[in-house]
């Protein structure tokens, strides 16, 4: 079965819409064949990860698109880059890399993308609705769009994200199809204590456990509290997509395509059932820390906001900090999108947090670019994704903890850790 193209699509492939669009269509159709698609389908929006600098290849590709007169044809948002354009002084990397990263950002704006610079486009005002087809890249955004919004995107990576935005098409395959979205694996979390499940910290750790065990399959979780909130589902999905290749999960009673277990499974028997235990959770929590809290150098900072903090997450941070200050010499970073920062400014929280010793980072994230001070001592985070990637990217040691652990440690200027929640 080969790929069947409409006359418009065939024109794009032949170069009738310009060489930039032709390159985009070539990449799209080659990927469509790899996915086993027999046709393309239209999309209503895109989210681009390719704007984050990883070397010359990404710049060469974007430059070729710009030089070939390509433009996006659907509303298209941009993921984080390596630079914080609002706080440029935070960038500690070398100037040449900074210039290349900035050039790449400019190229994507020239292609007609909106300079949103966030990994959490689902926190923007306009977001896709149930059943809407989009082309989203950035693993945490993909899993959120599919799972929490019920929009439809396959697991797209760099290059095809912009190729889809320029052609307005995606392969009609994978998670765009009804069958591709049915769960084949049941994950039973009913053995976890209600106390643990009532805490935010359970969700990134659970995601880490589940991602490593389901791999590329679509899982449905049973036993989660009904109506689990978006921030928790976001943390759950982001860590599933770090430890595994998860692009869609369902949670019975919390996500739109899983009103019941049977609906999520499409009436089929699951291929397998995984049970998550308290011991699994403690083991995953331990794996997420690389630092030795007992004998290593003392904790010297915290980093939150991976994926980008939402307004409600800031609200919890402000409430928990309760007017206290970060200890002198202790580093505290929160990464977020510039749109959320605007909201924080309106609420007066941005100034209050700055005065309390918290550095807000926008447009980028502390684990992908040199922002955190280069000195010894671990950083604590409540993000499983940060904990997973930061040691490799930055060479820092990490301690994983809850939001409360992070804030109490930052106020005390030394490690404070509540172990009790992980037992019972």
């Amino acid at each position: 079965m080969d790929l069947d193209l409409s006359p418009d699509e065939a024109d794009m492939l032949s170069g009738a819409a310009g060489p930039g669009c032709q390159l985009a269509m070539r990449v799209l159709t080659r990927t469509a064949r790899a996915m086993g698609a027999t046709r393309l389908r239209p999309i209503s929006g895109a989210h681009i990860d390719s704007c984050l600098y990883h070397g010359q290849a990404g710049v060469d590709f974007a430059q070729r698109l710009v030089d070939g007169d390509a433009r996006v044809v659907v509303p298209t948002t941009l993921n984080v880059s390596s630079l914080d354009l609002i706080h440029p002084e935070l960038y500690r990397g070398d100037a040449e890399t900074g210039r290349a990263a900035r050039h790449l950002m400019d190229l994507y704006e020239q292609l007609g993308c909106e300079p949103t610079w966030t990994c959490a486009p689902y926190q923007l005002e306009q977001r896709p609705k149930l059943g809407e087809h989009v082309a989203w890249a950035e693993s945490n955004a993909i899993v959120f769009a599919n799972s929490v919004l019920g929009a439809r995107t396959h697991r797209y990576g760099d290059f095809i994200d912009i190729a889809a935005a320029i052609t307005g098409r995606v392969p009609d395959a994978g998670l765009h199809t009804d069958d591709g979205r049915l769960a084949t694996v049941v994950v039973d979390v009913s053995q976890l204590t209600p106390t643990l499940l009532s805490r935010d910290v359970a969700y990134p750790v659970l995601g880490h456990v589940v991602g490593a065990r389901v791999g590329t399959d679509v899982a449905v979780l049973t036993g989660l509290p009904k109506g689990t909130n978006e921030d928790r589902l976001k943390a759950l999905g982001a860590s599933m997509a770090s430890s595994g290749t998860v692009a869609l999960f369902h949670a019975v009673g919390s996500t739109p395509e899983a009103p019941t277990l049977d609906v999520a499974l499409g009436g089929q028997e699951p291929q397998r059932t995984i049970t998550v235990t308290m011991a699994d959770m403690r083991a995953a929590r331990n794996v997420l820390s690389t630092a030795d809290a007992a004998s290593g150098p003392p904790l010297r900072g915290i980093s939150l906001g991976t994926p980008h903090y939402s307004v409600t997450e800031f609200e919890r941070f402000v409430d928990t900090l309760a007017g206290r200050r970060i200890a002198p010499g202790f580093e505290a970073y929160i990464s977020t999108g510039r749109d959320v920062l605007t909201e924080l400014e309106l609420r007066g929280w941005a100034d209050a947090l700055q005065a309390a010793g918290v550095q807000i980072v926008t447009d980028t994230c502390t684990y992908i670019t040199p922002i955190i001070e280069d000195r010894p001592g671990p950083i604590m985070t409540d993000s499983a994704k940060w904990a997973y990637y930061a040691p490799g990217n930055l060479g820092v040691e990490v301690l994983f903890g809850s939001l409360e652990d992070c804030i109490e440690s930052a106020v005390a200027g030394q490690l404070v850790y509540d172990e009790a929640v992980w037992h019972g």
Partner: protein
Amino acid sequence: MADQPFVIVAGEASGPVLVLDEPLSFWGGLDAETGRIIDQRHPQVGESVTGTVLCMPVGRGSSSASSVLAEAIRRDTAPAALVMREVDEIVALGAIVADEMYGTTMPVVVVSGTEFDRVTQLGVANVAADGALNEV
């Protein structure tokens, strides 16, 4: 997956077979400058993938894997070829774009479980344009 290999990027290459013990996210896991595995939690951290016929059953993690692989291909630090058991579009894209941009072909072949297991036993493997994999 039928026994016939599914060729995502066609080309000829050969190199020593390197089997990944665990899936690797190229972004955050592979240094495109050196071709070495840098994921501190990966059992093969520190090993080089450059010039190998890399056997990686499935992909993992970030959307940026495509960019990292394309950059590694551009810098000649990439594997000679990639053999997978399941299609990973994000990994495939890195190879597709390097092919389009630089005309540098890194074959990507998806094979059945039985064939994958056979290939992992080879010492130095050759990948043919039709996806056939044999000892050199």
